[in-house]
C-alpha cells in the first residue's frame, strides 16, 4: 500500500457521489432523498478540498464554504416544502405526490 495521493480522495468522492445518486433515484421517502442530496454535495466538497491541497491554493476551500452554505439553504427550503406538503397531502413518500401527473 503506497502513500495516499489526491487520486484516492477523488475515488472516495466518486463513491459518495454514486451512493448519493442511488439514494436520490431509488428512495421514496423525501427526507432520505434530501439526505442523499447532502451526500452528493459533500462529495463535491471532498474534491474541492483535495485539489486545494494538491495545488497549494486556498481558493478551493473558499468554494467549499459556498457549497456548504448552499447545502444549508437547500435543506431549510426543502424541509419547509416537505412540511407544507405533509400538511396538504398527509404523505412524505415521493411517489404519492402525483398532483401534476397526467
Amino acid at each position: 500500500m503506497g502513500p495516499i495521493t489526491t487520486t484516492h480522495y477523488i475515488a472516495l468522492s466518486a463513491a459518495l457521489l454514486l451512493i448519493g445518486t442511488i439514494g436520490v433515484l431509488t428512495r421514496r421517502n423525501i427526507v432520505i432523498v434530501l439526505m442523499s442530496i447532502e451526500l452528493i454535495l459533500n462529495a463535491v466538497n471532498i474534491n474541492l478540498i483535495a485539489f486545494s491541497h494538491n495545488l497549494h491554493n486556498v481558493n478551493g476551500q473558499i468554494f467549499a464554504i459556498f457549497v456548504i452554505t448552499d447545502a444549508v439553504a437547500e435543506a431549510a427550503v426543502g424541509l419547509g416544502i416537505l412540511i407544507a406538503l405533509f400538511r396538504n397531502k398527509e404523505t412524505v413518500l415521493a411517489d404519492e405526490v402525483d398532483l401534476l401527473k397526467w
Partner: protein
Amino acid sequence: MDVILFLIFAIIAVVCAVNVVVQTHPIASAISLVGVMGSLAVLYLLLGAEFLAMAQIIVYAGAIMVLFVFVIMLLNAGAESKRGRSLVAQLLGFPLLIALLALASYFIQRYYPGTATVQFGAFKAGTAQNIGRALFTQYLLPFEVTSILILIAIVGAVVLARKEL
C-alpha cells in the same frame, strides 16, 4: 499514519453513506449521515483544511442534522415499505454500479495520475486567518451575495412552513 487514518475514515464514510441509503427508517439514516459528516471532517483535517473541518462538524452535525431530526419527529414518519422493483433492476443494479465505479476510477487514474502525495501538515493555508482574508478581500462580493441567498432561504422556509398556505 496518514495511510491508516485515511483508510479508516474513508471506509467509515462509505459504510455510513451506504447505510444512509439502505435504512428504511429515516432516524437511522440521519444518525448514519452524522457518521459520514464526522469522518469527512477528519479527512478535511488530513488535507489541512482546519477551518472547514470545524465548519463541517458545526454546520452539518450541529445544524442540518438537528433540522432533519426535528422534521422527522414533526412528521412522525415511520419505516417505509418496500416497493416491488423490476427483476432487471434487481439483477443488474449492483453489477452495473460496480462497473460504473470501476470505469470512473479507471478514467481518474488515466487522466489524473496522482503523483502528488497527501502529507499531513504539508499544506497549512486552511486556517481561519487565511480563509477569512481570502473571503473578505478577493471573494467579498460572492460572500455578500451568499448572505442575500441565506436571507431568501430563511424567508422562504418560514413562508412555506406557515400554517395557512
